[in-house]
């Protein structure tokens, strides 16, 4: 033996967890939803997802290498995840140049302008999505109909559940079962509640997330829309329709649980989840946008530092 020993403070062992393990874990959890999107939207889903991932990773690499002048960390999986989540939040016929702009907004503005992973206030994929929604409202709100497997940009578009709701066209709604499985229009990753819930179960099992954020969002939306439905069933759809439609599942399970932009204590997570649930419902029921999940999460991302400073973890021996 060389006559040299390592000396460092305790602990001397590490559990082996890593940022990339968590990021790739989330990506694995997104596989069922991706498979459903391929089944529903075929070529379009593949092109949009691949484009978003390539652009996000590329922009992250270029910005880290040439603007920030540090070692690129594209292998940690976070840029890939941002790309996949961005793709899941847009229609499957979105032109590639718009995806490139969205990726630049997500990585450049949403993440790197704050200093990179861990320092951003807002979820990068969400930043990209909202940037696109405001910049390209027409392209972002016309969704192809399910089942056109070999088309991409020229797919026939149709209405989504929430746009039908917003127009008051309750009679054209798909059945709850179709909504649960994914036979409805929408952004490419959000259509199947079943696939997204499978992803949630996987992440809970792997301890990547805890139940607090998604469950409190589901509960709040269910209760809030349930009350409104009871008050006026003709105007307000049933709470199950709200839970299964739009980006609620995708947002609650994969976007709101983003580590960096969500609170750290359990009580804080619940407050954050309730806030997202209330804001989403308010925007859906009373706002001019049919969907409110993105904005709700975005707003609560901004409130997270405040929640962190008021909602502390339960202290040993405390009240």
């Amino acid at each position: 033996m060389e006559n040299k020993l390592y000396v460092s403070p305790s602990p001397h062992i590490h559990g082996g967890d890593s940022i990339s393990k968590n990021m790739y874990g989330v990506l694995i959890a997104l596989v069922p939803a991706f498979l459903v999107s391929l089944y529903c939207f075929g070529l379009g889903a593949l092109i949009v997802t691949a484009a978003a991932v390539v652009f996000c990773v590329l922009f992250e690499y270029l910005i880290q290498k040439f603007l920030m002048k540090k070692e690129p960390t594209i292998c940690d999986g976070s840029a890939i995840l941002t790309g996949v989540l961005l793709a899941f939040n847009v229609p499957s016929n979105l032109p590639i140049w718009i995806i490139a702009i969205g990726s630049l907004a997500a990585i450049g503005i949403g993440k790197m302008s704050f200093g990179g992973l861990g320092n951003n206030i807002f979820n990068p994929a969400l930043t990209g999505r909202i940037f696109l929604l405001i910049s390209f409202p027409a392209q972002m709100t016309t969704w192809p109909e399910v089942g056109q497997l070999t088309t991409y940009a020229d797919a026939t578009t149709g209405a989504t559940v929430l746009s039908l709701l917003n127009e008051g066209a309750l009679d054209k709604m798909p059945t709850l079962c179709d909504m649960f499985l994914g036979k409805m229009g929408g952004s490419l990753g959000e259509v199947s509640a079943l696939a997204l819930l499978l992803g949630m179960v996987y992440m809970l099992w792997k301890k990547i997330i805890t139940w607090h954020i998604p469950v409190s969002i589901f509960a709040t939306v269910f209760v809030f829309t349930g009350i409104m439905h009871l008050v006026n069933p003709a105007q307000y759809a049933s709470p199950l329709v709200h839970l299964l439609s739009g980006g609620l599942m995708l947002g609650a399970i994969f976007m709101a649980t983003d580590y960096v932009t969500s609170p750290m204590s359990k009580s804080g997570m619940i407050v954050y989840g309730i806030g997202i649930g209330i804001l989403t419902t308010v925007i859906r029921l009373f706002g001019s946008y049919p969907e409110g999940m993105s904005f709700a999460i975005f707003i609560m991302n901004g409130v997270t530092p405040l929640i962190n400073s008021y909602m502390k973890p339960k202290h040993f021996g405390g009240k």
Partner: protein
Amino acid sequence: MLRTFRIGGIHPPENKLSAGKKITALAAPKQVIIPLSQHIGAPAQAVVKKGDLVKVGTLIAKAGGFVSANIHSSVSGKVNKIDNALDASGYRRPAIYIDVEGDEWEETIDRSETLVKDCTLSSKEIVDKIAAAGIVGLGGATFPTQVKLMPPPGSKAEIIIINAVECEPYLTSDHSLMMEKGEQILVGVSLLMKAVNVNKAVIGIENNKPDAIAHLTKLAASYSGIEIMPLKVQYPQGGEKQLIDAVIRRQVKSGALPISAGAVVQNVGTAYAVYEAVQKNKPLFERVVTVTGKAVANPSNLLVRMGTPINDLIEAAGGIPENTGKIIGGGPMMGKALISAEVPVTKGSSGVLLLTKEESVRKPMQDCIRCAKCVNVCPMGLNPAFLMKYTVYKDWDLAEANYIQDCIECGSCSYTCPANRPLLDYIRSGKGKVMGIIRSRKS
């Protein structure tokens, strides 16, 4: 369902390589180096000088204050010198060097193996004997035992809780002691109960030692008031506050002593030392030390005289492996990395762990992603990520308001962090600073 503490916790790989190995006595070395600071509190003061002849068990240093402990010679021979010596802390501090000649014990020590169950001493006499024998907490905290047995005025002990969880990975010294000295431990527990005048004691043992649980449960049937409680395996259950929470479902408040929850907690090894001191007149000069590591040829549980160089223990376990990167005094979670294998065994040495070079290197730190995994595992309900940040920014007010001083330094946060952040390194230094501020405010 098995009990455990209710906030946080982790379950690192147990790696109890030396489990089931019999305790073997290690012969005294040629020279022992006995540090005067082997306990928390004031260093002991030497009562021997160069050239003095001592026997095994001779008092060589007297307690240097209320919170301090006597120290006895672990060998017979001649005092070579009193000089600074490198100890586990990494500093050179005063120690007594004794050259070993023969193995002659003080006549007062009962060296027979017969079990002495009965004790007619009063509470005070028991405590005095414990103090005279220089017993300290053998779990690693090394707090002088007699001090814990004298509750401050106004507080009353209701229960003795014996810490036999041995939650640190690798270590098996307590486990082996329970298997081989079960009766003695139970007598020791009875003595502790008598010392603080309670009629109930619980020995908490983690469920990964079913043989020890079965063995002690069988023996405890003939001792009144002693219950064996199997606990769910969870680190850091050996933490005093965590163990109290697990066993009696009470959480000691921030800054309060365990006695405020009515509990006196003692390590199982301490209970054995109490038996030997009170019933056999044997002061604390030897202890069981686990020598272990994945590359160690022969992981063992050794009965070692205090002051024996760690090197001798490693030799007895098959020598130092080729690719050793780190030598740890204690377990992997809370032990201290030693800067040399010449460091002597002291009262707090529960184990010697050799890590390979690959196991010794920390991975590079990344930015915090606020995943809150450290929050989820912190057994004190703190936010380690924020405490580290407050320390970096030297914001001592916020650090104190967020209870940095409550950190028990278990290391669960650093162990868990996916970004490999050295959370505990920072928190430990911030805690030291804040404790200093709190002390200066009081005085």
